[in-house]
């Protein structure tokens, strides 16, 4: 009988314990760090690494993805065309894929058919929503091509000078310093204008970035550097023209766009000259001489715009490679020691989303904190964009960065493609990242190589 009581007591106690125990996330070591995009990770390190559709989409969603893919690749044509009509009148390129080659990065040239660098422009001050102040006759972006009979707004000239530097161990490296000028202006600009170059970034994994709960991003912010680590981190709050309200910025190189839909619609509008239900007017509407004379807006149907937006939402992230390679493991430690990970934040968990299980509750490794940081005068565009000041850029997601060469050879890095190698990109860092750059500058050759090998595993 006594034994019975003891047994009952023991079981009762265990039951009590098990009831009190809350479920806990796995220990860090239990996760597979290769799965950069959670379950939406693709295992393809070839030139098509960025092109893979989400796993597990239903038949209709898969069809929608394919329609969006076709819209992404469609070359737009001069109106009136029976198909893909409405290019321009002024534009930067004829299709999405003309800049985002292979869903990847672009080429830092301007004015050619495969050019992927565009130039933002604005006057000092802010518009009615706190965004960049448009320049009359130009808006906030230079369209450097035009349909026949119309004029490009300007020619964008890119000139590089070359600086020689050396690491502490004496090995030299070169940085190319761009200067940007406009010539052949279509309309005289009265006043001092600000320019900001933007190279087309890769477009995979965006659905996951859009699904990161805002509170996780804000939790990483440290606007006044309260912890005194020299790194602040600031969210951008931007105008969402579709929703008609301010929201946290998630896309664009200065985080000036709140959602994929707005990003896609803005790119159609500004880059290709295609109007939609989000942006109903041509960017050149205040330039009567640039009108094509057709009352054909919106030029893209709602369903195609939505399909391209869905396509952007549902591209998988490439898996990491060589994660057990000792040199990669060593490089990963250096990445931490150099405090790269203070901004290139490794982990987020996407929000629970019952309506879209493929995006829901995914543990992802984007290597960004989705925040703005002062990157120093060397990289500054000196052109504010909502809450981003002239020195600030978003932390670039580093997932997939090791495959840029495989997908877009030769590869270019940073907001305007000035860096030709990963090490150049690191050595351009300044401002809040100055200490990290100096840390790398002092590394031995062996450690530098390990750091690069780690980055190439992303």
């Amino acid at each position: 009988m006594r034994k019975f009581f003891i047994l009952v007591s023991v079981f009762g106690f265990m039951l009590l314990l098990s009831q009190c125990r809350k479920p806990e996330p796995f220990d860090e070591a239990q996760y597979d760090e290769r799965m950069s995009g959670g379950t939406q990770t693709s295992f393809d390190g070839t030139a098509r690494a960025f092109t893979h559709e989400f796993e597990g989409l239903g038949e209709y969603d898969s069809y929608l993805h394919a329609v969006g893919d076709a819209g992404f690749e469609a070359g737009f044509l001069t109106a009136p065309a029976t198909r893909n009509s409405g290019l321009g009148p002024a534009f930067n390129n004829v299709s999405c894929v003309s800049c985002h080659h292979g869903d990847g990065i672009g080429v830092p040239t301007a004015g050619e058919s495969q050019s992927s660098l565009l130039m933002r422009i604005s006057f000092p001050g802010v518009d009615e929503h706190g965004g960049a102040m448009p320049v009359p006759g130009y808006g906030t972006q230079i369209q450097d091509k035009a349909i026949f009979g119309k004029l490009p707004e300007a020619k964008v000239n890119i000139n590089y000078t070359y600086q020689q530097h050396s690491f502490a161990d004496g090995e030299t490296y070169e940085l190319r310093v761009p200067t940007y000028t406009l010539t052949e202006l279509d309309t005289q600009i009265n006043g001092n204008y600000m320019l900001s170059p933007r190279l087309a970034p890769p477009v995979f994994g965006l659905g996951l970035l859009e699904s990161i709960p805002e509170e996780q991003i804000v939790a990483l912010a440290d606007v006044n550097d309260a912890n005194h680590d020299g790194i602040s981190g600031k969210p951008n709050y931007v105008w969402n023209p579709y929703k008609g309200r301010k929201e946290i910025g998630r896309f664009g190189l200065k985080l000036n766009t709140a959602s994929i839909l707005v990003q896609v619609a803005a790119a159609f509008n500004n880059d290709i000259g295609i109007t939609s239900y989000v942006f109903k007017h041509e960017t050149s509407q205040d330039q009567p001489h640039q009108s094509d004379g057709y009352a054909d807006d919106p030029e893209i149907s709602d369903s195609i715009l939505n399909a391209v937006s869905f396509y952007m939402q549902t591209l998988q992230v490439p898996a990491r490679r060589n994660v057990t390679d000792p040199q990669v493991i060593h490089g990963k430690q250096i990445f931490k020691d150099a405090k790269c990970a203070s901004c290139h934040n490794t982990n987020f968990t996407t929000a629970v989303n019952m309506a879209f299980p493929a995006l829901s509750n995914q543990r992802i490794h984007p290597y960004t904190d989705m925040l703005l940081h002062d990157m120093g005068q060397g990289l500054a565009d000196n052109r504010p964009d909502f809450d981003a000041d002239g020195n600030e850029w978003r932390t670039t997601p580093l997932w997939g960065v090791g495959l840029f060469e495989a997908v877009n050879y030769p590869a270019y890095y940073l907001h305007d493609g000035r860096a030709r190698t990963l090490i150049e990109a690191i050595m351009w860092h300044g401002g809040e990242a100055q200490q990290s750059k100096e840390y790398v500058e002092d590394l031995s050759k062996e450690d530098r190589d390990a750091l690069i090998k780690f980055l190439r595993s992303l």
Partner: protein
Amino acid sequence: MVSGCKKKSDDSSPTSEVTEQQVLDDFTNVLVNPNYADLQAKANALNQAIVVLSGTTTNTNLYAAQVAWRAVRVPWEQSEGFLFGPVEDFNYDPSTDSWPVNTVELDSLLASTNPLTEADIELLQDALKGYHPIEYLLFGVGGTRDASELGARELQYIVSLSANLDSVVNHLKNDWTSPPVNYANELRTAGHGSTRFTTRKDAFRTIVDAMEHICNEVANAKMQDPLIEHDSEKVESQYAHNATIDFTNNIVGLQNVYFCRYAGHTGNSLHDLVSAKNASLDNAIQAQIEVAIASLQNLDVNYGLAIFTQQGQIITSQQQINLLHDNLDLLKQFVEQYIND
């Protein structure tokens, strides 16, 4: 029975087995370089035929130029069986093979005072360059072009367009064979000094990935887009009614890759590697390539019409090409399992 069990004596010796290195060597020497050389020769012949047409604009010379246009499409579409490397890196594909043609822009261009020299062509957008604007002018809508419809401006334009095509194709060919790019060398030295392919496996992955890509492109884009949108203006090579031939040559290009063959020459191939280790997979791939090609032959009207009148045959053909894609997934697994670095 005994003979059935007996191996070929050659196969029993490890030294006679086809090596991965030989396959990579022959992929470039036997297939890619001759394919692009053929493309360049045919692009040059097209340019010459158009120069002749421009000098003497008769229907006979127009027909000769049309034949030359169809001829250059063969090596080009076959080369899409290996759509990677310089053709992608330097955007030779979009700058020569974009469609639909921007006909409104094209008409404006012809009506303008643009001198239409080769240098002017360089500056045009992709939808005004390459195979399809040439096709549009040589064949006309519905393939009804008469030589008398070609004026001086049209002729000047296609002379320059075909010269530009010839020049782009020449770059493409040279980028495989010559410095600074020398892509053939990058592929051959995969895992052994190549800056592009850190392992041999990477090189094979890229080759098989491109085979899958062209299946996907043919079945799920080139055939699918016009079909689901009921729109013959989305058909590739719509003016020459050459779409089904293009599709077929895409799959033949994939077949060329699998067997490493071009213009009657055959080299060491993926087929050799697979048949040595997995005969049933090899048989399945071979058979499915044949079935996919045969299924395209069932489309016996031009594709722009077939999307309205032969939808069943189109869907069957798409299914067969997608089944081939599934077989290539197994080939991908084979590469992961058997290709040594």
